[in-house]
């Protein structure tokens, strides 16, 4: 168990290293980093300043270590389009993104999981059929389109719910639905298929032979086994949430890290882009790590293996 965690931890660090190296080299090798890092209208003094700050004449490994070292102590540089420290921006935006991602995740768990279990338990009946239609549609619907359709229906046509920004608790509803939709559908589908598998297993049959109530059979015996493979999907959910927050924040102008990174792309504010990419990647990678460790912890075959 200890070895397993250590191995996964090393892998996570390595992944983050590769991502940072990719960004670093991309900027250094595809031309003049000064042109990438500074806005077009920058003055000659700014160029000179940057050249000194980055130490562009030093060997690449030295530059990389310095760059990473600064980020590790929280110094992400200054935004060229907003003229404030990136760390300041991050402090403002991070809680908003976390709040949105959390709501989307909660929605997926609160709706997808129970619907998946019910769908499997009532297979072939009305609940099951409608849940499956929802799952197929949900997985095939681009979230950006869904977001725009919701925007058109509620704020534009019906005049209810705010169209964008962050104002009061109602403003999170539409972005959270947009974000959680795909994850809910995937979770429903996977829960259903693993539940079907466990419900037809011999140990569920034996549980029924014991005379246990249907509720105990489904939620204790079948669900606990189905939950393990479902957990492996959590990493996919995480991926969907990262992509999804960027899209939902853009569609609804939610003041989080996702909308910030895209506006930085438009403004060619590369200092902000690289900082956010590193931070969001780190969140994603360590989120995955947590899921893996949780999985190992819940699975007795690995725990005692």
């Amino acid at each position, binding site marked *: 168990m200890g070895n397993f965690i250590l191995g996964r931890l090393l*892998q996570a660090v390595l992944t983050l290293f590769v991502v940072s190296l990719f960004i670093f080299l991309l900027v250094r090798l595809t031309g003049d980093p000064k042109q*990438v890092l500074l806005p077009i209208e920058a003055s000659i003094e700014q160029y000179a300043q940057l050249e000194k700050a980055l130490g562009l004449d030093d060997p690449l490994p030295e530059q990389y270590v310095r760059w990473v070292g600064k980020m590790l102590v929280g110094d992400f540089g200054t935004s060229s389009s907003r003229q404030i420290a990136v760390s300041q921006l991050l402090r403002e935006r991070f809680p908003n993104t976390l709040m949105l991602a959390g709501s989307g995740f909660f929605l997926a768990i609160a709706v997808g999981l129970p619907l998946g279990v019910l769908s499997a338990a009532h297979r072939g009946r009305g609940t099951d059929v409608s849940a499956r239609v929802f799952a197929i549609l949900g997985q095939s619907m*681009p979230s950006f389109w869904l977001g725009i359709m919701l925007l058109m229906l509620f704020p534009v046509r019906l005049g209810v719910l705010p169209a964008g920004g962050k104002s009061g608790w109602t403003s999170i509803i539409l972005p959270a639905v947009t974000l959680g939709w795909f994850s809910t559908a995937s979770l429903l589908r996977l829960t259903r298929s693993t539940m079907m598998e466990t419900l037809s297993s011999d140990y569920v049959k034996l549980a029924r032979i014991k005379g246990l109530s249907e509720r105990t059979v489904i939620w204790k015996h079948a669900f606990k086994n189905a939950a393990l493979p479902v957990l492996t999907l959590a990493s996919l959910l995480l*991926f969907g949430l990262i992509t999804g927050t960027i899209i939902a924040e853009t569609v609804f102008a939610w003041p989080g890290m996702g909308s910030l990174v895209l506006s930085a792309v438009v403004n060619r504010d590369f200092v902000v882009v690289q900082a956010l*990419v590193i931070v969001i990647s780190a969140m994603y990678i360590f989120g995955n790590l947590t899921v893996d460790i949780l999985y190992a912890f819940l699975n007795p075959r690995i725990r005692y293996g």
Partner: protein
Amino acid sequence: MAEIAAPRGADWVEPPAGSPAVPSRRWWLRRPPIIPTLPMIMIGIIFFAAIFASVIAPFSPTKNHLFDSFTAPWGWEGGSSTYILGTDFLGRDIFSRIIHGARISLTIAGLVILIGASVGTLVGIVAGYFGGLLDSILMRIADLVLGIPLILVAIVLVTVTGASVGNIIFIVSAFVWPRYARIIRSETLSLREQDFVMLARVAGISSRRIMLRHILPNVVSTLIVLCTLQVGQVVLLESALSFLGVGIPPPKPSWGIMVADGRTNLTSGWWISLTPGLAIVVLVVSFNLVGDWLRDRLDPRLQRY
């Protein structure tokens, strides 16, 4: 023995009256199943439209008709039969753009899957067949790539090098191959232990030949299922990236860009986002349904992917 009636074969066509009902299984009396017939027809139509786009489309997808901008679809107030699905803010014909968009989506999906499946299959078979250190290294790389948030890499790459079709194909393929590699590897692992491969090895056939002639043909059905299931995912990813402005560069008529175009004009032209989004949904649903059907037919063990 002559008086003993020979056992009769399958010539009980009609059960006599009074025996338990056996429903008629004559194929011409059976309705063709909705799945996969309907989605297959849809895929056929989309392919047809993509191939003959320049013949079918009434207008050039990039031609502006500024005097006719914001024309509603045919049948709505202000609509005309000239532009069946209406026009966008530059007066471009949405119907023509959707048809040409199908060509772009399918081309990109096809190329990405071709590259991703080839690389992934090669890596998977080599890793599974040789095992050992090579296997560990290749699979660590695959895990590492899966651990990187693709959308962020796309954002960085586009900020530095600008949006291009080459970029998006590179990025999405890089994301796709590890999935093939993992699944094909596990198939190869079990094939390697089977008698016919053992026999071939005993007979002194070269590893390359065994992989090509004995293992590859046995993973083909898995590959077909995977490729079909991946089309939807790749189309969704490509359109999401294009929507965010880090995918296909405008003015190419990508469905994702078309949805994005409608976002800024929600009050004056609700139809601009609606139909391109529906096109994505139809394409993705169709491929997912056919993929699921194929999987149940060819490779039920792939349940979870």
